[in-house]
């Protein structure tokens, strides 16, 4: 007899653990729009990853080409690049305003929340507005000493198409 599997009841976004995760995702969005990368990097755990894949279906980030696939070392170098003043793309980067919403908790425990969301980012530079639409997944580790991001995956709707070269982060 096949076992009957009942889908667990969805966890509402009002669950206090989910609320903490959403707070962190929103705080991250605002730091990125302000280009406060030094504070932003502190939101990640040491073993955390920040990924913008190209292949919309892959979870094998190591085995495929990504736009961004950052561990702690790469993230540190990236922040240095964005803030040191020598990267002409970063110095003259577009101004961005992003909206992160449509939160759906995928899994929730007392230690970790996996949160899906939508991000719509408008980047303005030199008379042009570019739209960057993406699905986000945040894996957020909950801890009394501060909640941190273990994994952020940004899946652009046009990841396989030609996007502008960017001087900011998604």
């Amino acid at each position: 007899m096949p076992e009957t599997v009942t889908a667990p009841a969805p966890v509402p976004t009002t669950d206090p653990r989910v609320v903490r995760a959403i707070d962190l995702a929103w705080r991250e969005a605002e730091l990125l729009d302000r280009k406060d990368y030094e504070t932003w990097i502190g939101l990640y755990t040491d073993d955390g990853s920040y990924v913008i894949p190209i292949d919309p279906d892959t979870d094998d980030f190591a085995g495929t080409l990504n736009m961004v696939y950052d561990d702690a070392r790469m993230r540190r170098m990236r922040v240095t690049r964005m803030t040191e003043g020598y990267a002409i793309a970063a110095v003259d980067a577009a101004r961005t305003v992003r909206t992160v919403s449509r939160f759906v908790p995928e899994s929730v425990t007392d230690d970790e929340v996996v949160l899906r969301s939508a991000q719509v980012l408008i980047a303005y530079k030199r008379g042009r507005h570019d739209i960057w639409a993406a699905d986000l997944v945040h894996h957020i580790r909950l801890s009394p000493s501060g909640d941190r991001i273990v994994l952020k995956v940004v899946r652009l709707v046009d990841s396989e198409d030609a996007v502008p070269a960017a001087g900011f982060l998604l």
Partner: protein
Amino acid sequence: MSHDTTTPAELAAADRVAGRLYTDPEIFEGEISRIFERTWVWVAHESELPGPGTFKSAHVGRQPVIVTRDRKGTLHTLLNRCRHRGASLCEKPKGQANGFTCPYHAWSYGLDGKLRGIPYPEGYEGVIEKGELSLKKLRTESYGGMVFATFHDGIESLEEFLGDAKLWIDRFMKQGGGYPIKVLGKHRFKFRGNWKIQLENTTDGYHFPIVHRSWMASVDAETADMMSFMTDPSAITHALGNGHSVMQMVPGHSDLDADDGTEPLQGRFDHLIKDLAQTLEPAQVRKVVRAMHGTGFNLNLFPNVSMSAAFFRVLRPISVDETEIEHIAIGPDGPPELDAVNRERLRIHEHFQGPFGFGTPDDAEGWDRVQRGAQGAPDMPILVNRGLAREKASPEGWPTSHVTDETGMRAAYGQWKEMMRDA
């Protein structure tokens, strides 16, 4: 040419070109018909078409094409346009198929472009001859795994067109360490500027330490040292004929088979070397690791592909002030042990080449600035004269100068002028 008072020769002199070359839509239209639709244009690497029935979408100039491999293994480049009412047949970037059926009225075509079937054919009796309605096919030839197509049936063979560049294609492929090269993935991005700005950039050694300072600061000392060619007199650029050129940034890696064993392998690859040594011969390990950054040169093939160190850079003109670029990551196609090598090569590619890499956004910012600046005084020249007075012929007879000189750009504009002149 539209501005009949200005000839191609006046727009592109030996040492300067008019800024209007980046901004004039009529010049752009001329380039599409006289260059992109008359010469050999790169459309694929053979590894992207690994078996019968595989295909990829590409463009020749602005025209959409499908590159296919038929049952017998022959490559075809087909215009992606149904012979009935013009619908595009294929909107997938790549895949496998027995043929292409148009989604509009279901005319179906073979992998070689032949019209196979028409539904409800009664209305066409006495009206059409199926044999005359194959997809429009472009001449397709390949060299060293590089596949090119052309609309111009009367053009010289691909090998003649490549000429002295063939030697450099052969050398470029040595980064497989004795294994063939395969495509690992690609970055696609666009910038708001003319295609020739990008064409120039791959042969522009002069910008490297300035534009890529932030990348240089982020890599290990050995890599940074490898790329410090600005004052190295052995780092040189050759013009190879037909607009092609090669820029040797790391001359010691120009021929990867030339290895006297004295160069230490980079410490950053220690973990990889250890793993590979479990199953591969030391000489083989040395070969693939020494080629981790590709070859030490950029080979620029006029008009749309550059074989740049460890990747292909392909440009596609969209309009006078918009260009799309692909940065295609490549690596050896060998036994499973080499997966670790290719993963490392992907990381190196991501670090510089992507739309969020440490190199490309800075290049793109420079190109964007050129396009914006060129709106001012469009007839004021763009200088391509760096190193003109120190250019000499190499023993092979190639015009040669320092790697930071604009020899490669002069070669490309020489070809541009030839092609724009002959209508």
